[in-house]
């Protein structure tokens, strides 16, 4: 008995000693501050998530390369898989970890709406980089919640009016059954009716449903001029591909969820041609900091594109770091400081948060796919009349 106890004792003491030695800190380095990035890094939406992650990482890298900063930043990246339950798990993890000062979360609205309460419960300030569901900021006044991207209200308002101007009259809405899709459908319906157009039917499916031919068959019977899609890229790609297989020739009206290279590469440039969408930002080339961002992004050697919301992730991360530099790494102070942001310059333009933490300055731009690329409507051959949208009345 003595033997075994001594044995265990000796091992225990040596392990402890090892650990003590390994923990000697370099006392002369800058104080380390941890911030967290959350996005869909795996799964069907991963292209957007990885683009956002790379952009956030770039912001941290550039900041750390600046010798004048007080702190050294470490970006902790987490994968929410675009699923509410995983998002809840992951956010609970970072929120309950007191060493993480702020977060830059969520591409997927479904994930974001589920985690709002957790950020509040643990008082972790955050700046959303992509999720567009209005309720995230507007359902309640929660001091920890901020967002640099726009809400989906603006894009649907502009979209409905645009379609009216083109002369379209009959629509069918196809959305996913998460809160994101429901909200898209709600505002699409509201603004389309406001423009005195007709909605022949509404369909909703879970975002990972593979076979949409049943719903598309019914849509074919209804024969609308336009199919409005309120969901994310994977489902959108499936809808577009299966529309083609069933011989449906309606015009596809998209939303910010299909903005980006991922959609075009998923359906192929031929099928993507002529798809419309409305997005709360001018293209990278026209953003105030666009050139700076794309130059540095390429220099950093990332193989995957920043995608539609990469610049927003960059801007959000920079915003957080700027505030930490000003008021120090303290959650409560950062929450207060973020609430006061007005006209802050960034690569996406001036950022101003309203009382609910929502950035009120993004402008909605209209896009159409031309030759395998998203092109601003006004600069496209569709606007001049050289090419025609589908099903024009």
């Amino acid at each position, binding site marked *: *008995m003595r*033997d*075994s*106890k001594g*044995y*265990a004792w000796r*091992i*225990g003491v040596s*392990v402890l000693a*090892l*650990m003590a030695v*390994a*923990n000697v800190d370099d006392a002369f380095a800058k104080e380390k501050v941890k911030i967290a990035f959350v996005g869909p890094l795996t799964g069907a939406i991963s292209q957007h998530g990885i683009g956002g992650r790379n952009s956030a990482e770039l912001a941290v890298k550039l900041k750390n390369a600046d010798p004048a900063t007080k702190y050294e930043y470490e970006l902790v990246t987490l994968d929410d898989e675009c*699923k*509410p*339950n*995983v998002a*809840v*798990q992951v956010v*609970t*993890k970072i929120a*309950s*970890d*007191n060493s993480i000062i702020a977060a830059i979360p969520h591409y997927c609205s*479904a994930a974001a*709406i*589920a985690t709002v*309460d*957790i950020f509040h*419960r*643990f008082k972790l300030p955050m700046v959303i980089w992509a999720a567009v569901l209005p309720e995230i900021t507007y359902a309640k006044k929660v001091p920890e919640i901020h967002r640099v991207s726009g809400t989906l209200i603006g894009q649907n308002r502009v979209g409905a009016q645009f379609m009216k101007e083109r002369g379209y009259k009959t629509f069918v809405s196809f959305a996913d*059954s*998460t*809160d994101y899709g429901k909200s898209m459908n709600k505002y699409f319906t509201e603004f389309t009716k406001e423009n005195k157009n007709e909605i022949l039917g509404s369909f909703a499916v*879970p*975002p990972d449903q593979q076979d949409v031919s049943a719903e598309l068959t019914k849509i074919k019977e209804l024969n609308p001029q336009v199919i409005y899609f309120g969901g994310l890229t994977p489902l959108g790609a499936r809808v577009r591909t299966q529309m083609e297989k069933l011989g449906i020739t309606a015009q596809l009206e998209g939303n910010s969820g299909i903005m980006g290279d991922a959609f075009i590469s998923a359906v192929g440039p031929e099928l993507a041609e002529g798809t419309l969408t409305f997005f709360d930002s001018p293209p990278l080339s026209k953003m105030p900091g666009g050139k700076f961002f794309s130059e540095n992004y390429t220099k950093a050697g990332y193989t995957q594109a920043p995608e539609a919301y990469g610049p927003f992730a960059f801007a959000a991360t920079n915003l957080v770091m700027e505030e930490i530099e000003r008021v120090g790494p303290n959650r409560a102070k950062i929450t207060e400081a973020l609430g006061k942001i007005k006209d802050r310059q960034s690569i996406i333009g001036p950022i101003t948060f309203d009382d609910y933490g929502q950035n009120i300055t993004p402008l909605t731009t209209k896009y159409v796919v031309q030759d395998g690329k998203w092109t601003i409507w006004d600069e496209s051959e569709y606007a001049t009349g050289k090419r025609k949208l589908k099903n024009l009345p």
Partner: protein
Amino acid sequence: MTMISMKGTAGQIISSILVTVFLAGSLIAILEIEDQRELGICVAVIAVLSFIMPRLGILRSAEQAGAHHPWAVRSIILIGFFSVLLILRDNNFALLMIATILIYATVCLGITIQTGYAGLFNFAGAAFLGTGGYTAAMLGNVTWLPDAVTIILGGIIAAALGTLLILPVLRTRGHYAALTTLAFGVLFNGFLEANELLGGPQGLKVPGIQMFGWDFSNDLAIGSYTFSFYANYVLLIGAIFAVFMMFTRFVERSWIGIWLDAVRLDEIAASVFGLKVSVWKSFAFIAGNFLAGVMGAVYAKMTAFIAPANFTFGDSLLLVAIVLLGGIGNRWGVLIATMIVILLPEKLQFIQEYRLLLFSCVIIMLLMVRPAGLLARRVRVFEELR
């Protein structure tokens, strides 16, 4: 290795203390260490120690202590539990992990009763977990209903749902029986995803627990120590786990356990001896599901969120695999296996991506090489008291 003589009460008690200290220490170490390198070393050391321990006869001795001096062992465990709680008192995440481990361990106790004792296959464990959770979610807005009742109702409704399956489960054997629960688990998930009333794929928010006039989302302050609010949940779940452990022990060591074993080992012989096979199978099935339902309700309330994606076939499979890993029919094995399966992937970042792959490989190897699991269930010795 020297076979140290551990017989006699003193030896048994000391072994139990050793085992408890080892477990508690490993738990604290794994939960507290952040640096990946240190953690890797630590895990390796723990693995080596846990390999050595059974060889020294300590484990056998501790088991005997549990059999002959249950209340002494229980006190030791209790002291260990409270020490862990005290040391980890302001580590939110650690307490959350402990709570999760205890929840899964309890559900697996239920599966142990179903599969380990009665020989029923249950591939829908996650569905019953989910039933409890959704009951809690739905009743969350009914403010006059005390949370204790909600939690128990979660268990009752899960058990009731299980009775729908009793007929097919009783009438089928082997693979057909497996299909029954499997199909049920899948259709339950599909139902939740499709049904708008229950929140659909977006999920539902669930209010926290308020029991005995105390809101569980408040940090606990005892004397000069402040415990993170998760400690409330750990205490509650720990209490429930203890109760169910004692219940399972009672079932196993009583004539009920013997009858269940008879049903499992040879159904036809059992019925020849006059055992009402269907009655005992139903008992095991319902009891197991009740446990799952209760823990589901508590889990939903603790994480304040519930979504269908938490209750897939993969999750049910995980529960069955944990039971197998721990040693089918061994209640302590369940706790160890749960700790390994839930804790390690969370803390060891470098295996996080590969955790499912590693887990499946481990189970495959286990099934090929050592199907009895980590802590094999001891064969009943009817002459133990000699």
